[in-house]
């Protein structure tokens, strides 16, 4: 019985392909009417025709299992369509509608072609089942590609938020922004150590101005990074400790005595310059001299 109805659905679709396509297109046009910016009609027509062909091929092979080999072309097509729609920014229901909106034209056609009521009910039931599972499959793929996008963004965020900058020859700075967890500490540590080797830097400044809270775990992560840098022969300075954070650190009993800490990045940079044997002097010596002379002249007068 199932085998019989299988051949009927496939046969009917193939026979009245143009009619179904026309009907289906009209329905879809309504649904994408608001999304003209994302998809044009010829494109939709092409996708729909391809899907109908693949549907006939699949239904010919097996009508009740979309994981049968005969359905592979149809699934691949849905994969592609779903992927591209996820990228284009279609909503989940708009994506699912692509497959589900085929029901109505198909059922209309079935009603025209099948006269016996029992057979008709049977056919409609079979067609519903298969279209539902195709619709669900579309959703799954859609979800997966969205997850892929989110994962990639997370990764990018992770890399973006841990830049190692060279402040001066031999002085690196690591402005930390956001919460420090184990995964980020790992990335921070690796990129910092790598840069230390590449640049042969002696001093690294960890600036935690952008770290919202420091608890024992974050402090431990910081100390680990500092210990690893020290093992490679580079000294670390922590800067950007806000008053609240200073209080928390003391309250928590975190021992930062072994580490040089400074209030601002500027202070840390100054001490780093001094340790590497450099100094910063004002270039406007003449201006000051001129002023001094002026005041001396004023005193004489």
């Amino acid at each position: 019985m199932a085998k019989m109805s299988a051949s009927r659905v496939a046969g009917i679709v193939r026979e009245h392909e143009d009619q179904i396509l026309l009907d289906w297109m009209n329905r879809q046009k309504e649904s994408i009417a608001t999304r003209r910016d994302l998809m044009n009609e010829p494109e939709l027509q092409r996708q729909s025709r391809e899907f109908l062909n693949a549907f006939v091929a699949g239904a010919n092979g097996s009508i009740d299992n979309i994981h049968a080999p005969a359905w592979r072309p149809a699934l691949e097509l849905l994969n592609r369509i779903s992927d591209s729609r996820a990228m284009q920014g279609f909503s989940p229901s708009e994506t699912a509608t692509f497959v589900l909106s085929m029901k109505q034209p198909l059922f209309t056609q079935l009603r025209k072609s099948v006269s016996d009521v029992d057979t008709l009910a049977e056919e409609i039931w079979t067609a519903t089942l298969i279209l539902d599972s195709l619709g669900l499959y579309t959703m799954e793929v859609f979800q997966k590609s969205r997850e892929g996008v989110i994962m990639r963004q997370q990764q990018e965020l992770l890399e973006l938020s841990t830049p190692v900058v060279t402040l001066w020859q031999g002085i690196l700075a690591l402005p930390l922004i956001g919460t420090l967890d184990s995964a980020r500490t790992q990335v921070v540590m690796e990129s910092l150590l790598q840069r230390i080797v590449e640049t042969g830097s002696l001093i690294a400044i960890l600036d935690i101005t952008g770290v919202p809270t420091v608890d024992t775990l974050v402090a431990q992560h910081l100390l680990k990074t500092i210990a690893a840098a020290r093992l490679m022969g580079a000294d670390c300075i922590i800067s950007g400790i806000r008053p609240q954070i200073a209080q928390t650190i003391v309250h928590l009993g975190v021992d930062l005595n072994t580490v040089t800490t400074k209030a601002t990045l500027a202070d840390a940079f100054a001490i780093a310059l001094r340790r590497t044997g450099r100094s910063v002097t004002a270039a406007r010596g003449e201006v000051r001299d001129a002023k001094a002379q002026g005041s001396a002249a004023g005193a004489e007068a």
Partner: protein
Amino acid sequence: MERIPILKMGTYLLVSIQVDMHDQLAMQLQDDLTTRIAATGARGVLIDISALEMVDSFIGRMLGNIASMSRVPDAETVVVGMRPAVAITLVELGLSLPRVRTALDVERGMELLASSIAAAERDDDLADR
């Protein structure tokens, strides 16, 4: 029997670890190094581990021990050229080697040795007066 060579350069001893350290080798090095410090009266020891790719807790502890032992007969020890992966491993193992002096490369290690020995001598002179 495999051995890690110890080179004498003036008042310094140079050790470059070019092979994968195993436990026996580390014990041997510790033995040889203390003997050589005693024999030569070296003031500084420089251990280059830039070719060392893998460490375990034993080797990590050994590095710390060697540094502490050479300090007893008054020889400063500097470990140079540790790789990032090795540093991360040691820290994760809980061995941050707080008493070992470190430097990025051999050149900087030599500078560090020279300056710290000079500082120690200055302190001695001051104490003598």
